[in-house]
């Protein structure tokens, strides 16, 4: 079972705003957000595989 600490929403999408600066900042925040989600998913996969290994080995 995935721990609660890995069952979170790390960030939300940002809007573009009305200026080039806000658009650029939105892009930076959103790409960072994707990276955080990707990282979270990687860790969830890692945890799942570790649990499978732990419980399959001891059968």
């Amino acid at each position: 079972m995935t721990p609660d600490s890995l069952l979170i929403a790390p960030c939300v999408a940002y809007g573009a705003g009305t200026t080039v600066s806000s658009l650029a900042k939105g892009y930076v925040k959103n790409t960072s957000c994707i990276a955080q989600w990707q990282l979270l998913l990687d860790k969830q996969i890692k945890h799942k595989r570790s649990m499978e290994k732990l419980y399959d080995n001891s059968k």
Partner: protein
Amino acid sequence: MLTDVVKKMFSKPLILALLFFISLSGLFGYASYHFYAEKQLVEERLDVSEANAKLLSSALLKAEKARKIADTITSEYVFDSKDIIASKEDVLNKIDELAVVVEAKQDAITKEEKNAIKYVPLDGSLPVSLRGLLAEACLHAKGIACNDS
């Protein structure tokens, strides 16, 4: 003659004693049979309990290992996540610094010129410095299309 001897041998107290010992033997026989069956049952239960204890102990060890793995992975996630957030903040700060420079340059522009460049055309190019920062943000996010930005 012989019947008298037999009669003397099996006098009433002797018969009573014999009956008493027979019943006592029967009682002990039954008791030992009963307790033996009970002992077998208890031994069986003990075996089952031992097996359960071993299973529980193994499950406990596994749960402990699982908890340690979860803690390690969560720590890794928090650490790596902080790294991503720090990179993002760094790029955001650089964009803010860039905006300050642009504003300083715009102070030198007249009001008419400012009105003329109020809107950025959709197909207009982004400033090179900003494009560099956006590419940097994409690289931090390990985006596959970073080279296009």
